[in-house]
């Protein structure tokens, strides 16, 4: 395996961080400490990790309602994320966005987006900026979206645009088999969504989205292509969400236990651990040290969120516009 030791450590840290962030965030949600709806992504750690392993802060990603994993893999601070979900002033968006709208423009993260499909053209636009400025080699756009979003017209328009303009963009479709309760086999007419890429003149690759090494390899090729000015690639990452669609959803109502078990057996974190220990790339002790550090980070994130202040009442009126400091307040 030609992945550096540092990169392997980063991958394990990132996947474990995503897993524990989602579990911790759910715990906090059930304790009543989240102010709104949350969509956990545990089980889906491999796609954001394997893809973002190739990215720097100069690359841009677009994300979805199920965006915590993308945020973490792009290097966002878990304390600021937790505080955002708790609606606090110290949150990543000052408590005004919440779980579905976490963004960090300093890290190349264009924002989680709650309108299905809406963030896809934003990543295309980021790739357009790179091409315009002639910096494709150091700034590509990656759009994360689901199997459900693949039915939105805006994806198809975006794919055609990216191909016509030969933009450095990666369409990363996380096919977790479901859009809410609706199975992809019902709602998507192609058995491999990646097969649609051909019609838009770009490579389409089906990837085992439970295997971070497979994702890493496929993404590496796609991103190298983009950086070399060869245009877009479509990756379909077959993955699975362990929890329900949102925090209060019980997936057992529409998924079979055998199916859930099939993916639990392919758990991306366990698979990583087994692979690196077998190949003697990382020791059990090293892995444990990483897990311990992440556990502490989660405790710190919760404490930070809980101890943070609420936003100022005036925040309601801030940032509607840049240069119009007195927008119309509620007529009372």
């Amino acid at each position: 395996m030609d992945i550096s030791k540092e990169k392997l450590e980063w991958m394990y840290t990132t996947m474990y961080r995503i897993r524990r962030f989602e579990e911790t965030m759910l715990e906090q949600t059930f304790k009543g400490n989240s102010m709104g709806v949350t969509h956990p992504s545990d089980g889906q750690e491999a796609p954001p990790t394997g893809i973002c392993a190739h990215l720097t802060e100069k690359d841009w990603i677009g994300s979805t309602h199920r965006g915590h994993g993308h945020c973490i893999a792009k290097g966002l601070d878990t304390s600021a994320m937790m505080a955002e979900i708790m609606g606090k002033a110290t949150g990543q968006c000052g408590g005004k966005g919440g779980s579905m709208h976490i963004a960090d423009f300093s890290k190349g993260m264009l924002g989680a987006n709650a309108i299905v499909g809406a963030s896809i053209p934003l990543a295309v636009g980021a790739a357009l900026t790179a091409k315009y400025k002639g910096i494709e080699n150091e700034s590509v756009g990656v759009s994360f979206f689901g199997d459900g979003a693949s039915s939105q017209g805006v994806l198809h328009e975006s794919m055609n645009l990216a191909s016509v303009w030969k933009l450095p963009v990666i369409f990363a479709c996380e096919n977790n088999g479901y859009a809410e309760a609706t199975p992809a086999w019902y709602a998507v007419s192609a058995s491999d969504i990646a097969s649609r890429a051909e019609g838009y003149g770009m490579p389409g690759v089906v990837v085992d989205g439970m295997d971070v090494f497979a994702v890493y390899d496929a993404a590496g090729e796609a991103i190298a292509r983009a950086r070399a000015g060869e245009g877009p690639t479509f990756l379909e990452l077959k993955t699975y969400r362990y929890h329900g669609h949102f925090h209060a959803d019980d997936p057992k109502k529409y998924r079979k236990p055998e199916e859930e078990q099939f993916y639990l057996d392919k758990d991306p974190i366990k698979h990583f651990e087994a692979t690196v220990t077998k190949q003697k790339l990382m020791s059990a002790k090293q892995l444990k040290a990483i897990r311990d550090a992440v556990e502490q980070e989660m405790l710190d994130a919760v404490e930070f969120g809980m101890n943070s202040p609420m936003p100022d009442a005036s925040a309601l009126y801030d940032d509607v516009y840049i240069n119009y400091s007195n927008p119309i307040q509620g007529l009372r």
Partner: protein
Amino acid sequence: MTTSQANNPLGPGYDGVPGKELRFRDVFRDTLRAEMIRDEDVFLMGEDISGGFDKDTKEPLDAWGGPFAATKGLVQEFGPERIRDAPISEAGFVGAAIGSALTGLRPVVDLMYFDFVTVAFDQLLSNAAKSRYMFGGQTRVPLTLFARSGAGTGHAAQHSESFYSMLAHIPGLKVVVPSDPYSVKGLLAAAIRDDDPVFLVNDKKLINLTGFVPDEDYVIELGKGRYLRRGTDVTLVGMSYTSIACQKAADQLAEIGIDAEVIDMMSLSPFDEDILIESVAKTHNVVIVDEDTPRASMASEFAAVIADKAFDHLDAPVKRVTAPHSPVPYNRDLEIAYMPQPEDVVRTVRKLLGHE
């Protein structure tokens, strides 16, 4: 009509009608069901309205009862042809619904959250609303759409809008906003039976509320408002969930000796100009309460009609209580401040009447 002060959903003076206390969402579902039984051309489409399908048998599972449980049990009763689960393609399936309406069916579309209407807006504006007019009256579009609006559930900026004013702005489209189980039954039935495209917007905060519903089959005439309470000192104009805020405000005002009249507009396009003028002619003071943002809103439109047609009856300027000109914030305290609360209405009325 008598001048009783009771908060009766049928309006003051309608006591003794047979009926029962029911939950909003159950009434919604039962009304859909009744309309589907009544007319075979009525069918439903929307995301997740079958709640998934069994992998082996391909049978619908109805895991969620549809978004907001509005279609619970319907797929078992009517089957997947008439309860048509749609991929996430709002522009496509709203357009297909319009096409089916132009060719003889009566589609009903569940758009889930009201915010998603923008994905299908071109179809709604350019095709649904204009076909009859631009084709010289040759055709009709008996389409019904419904979706849930409103802040207050921690869904943040992209799932909490109340911009029904954007729809009411469109000639050719009708817009109704129920505010309780009584009005949703009558308005949904009227919308489905109407031959023009009608959009029913229901605030999420209404879904689990209960209220009195008459047993009989009835429709509420599109374009009509109602009195929820009679009073003489000030008119409170509500729509959708703000009609409830107005009733609570009226209760609080009564405690300090202010006798408020409450109007629930129910229809936003067309809307009931007469009820506004009639009430203002009596009370001489009016406060309009709207959760939509204030610029180019229904509150502004109602205020304009009152200023135009009831100006001589006014003792004071027309007041509006609305959301600020901003998206909906996530933080709960900010979200509460965003929505017009009964206390905001009371404060505005006291100021208006010099009762401070």
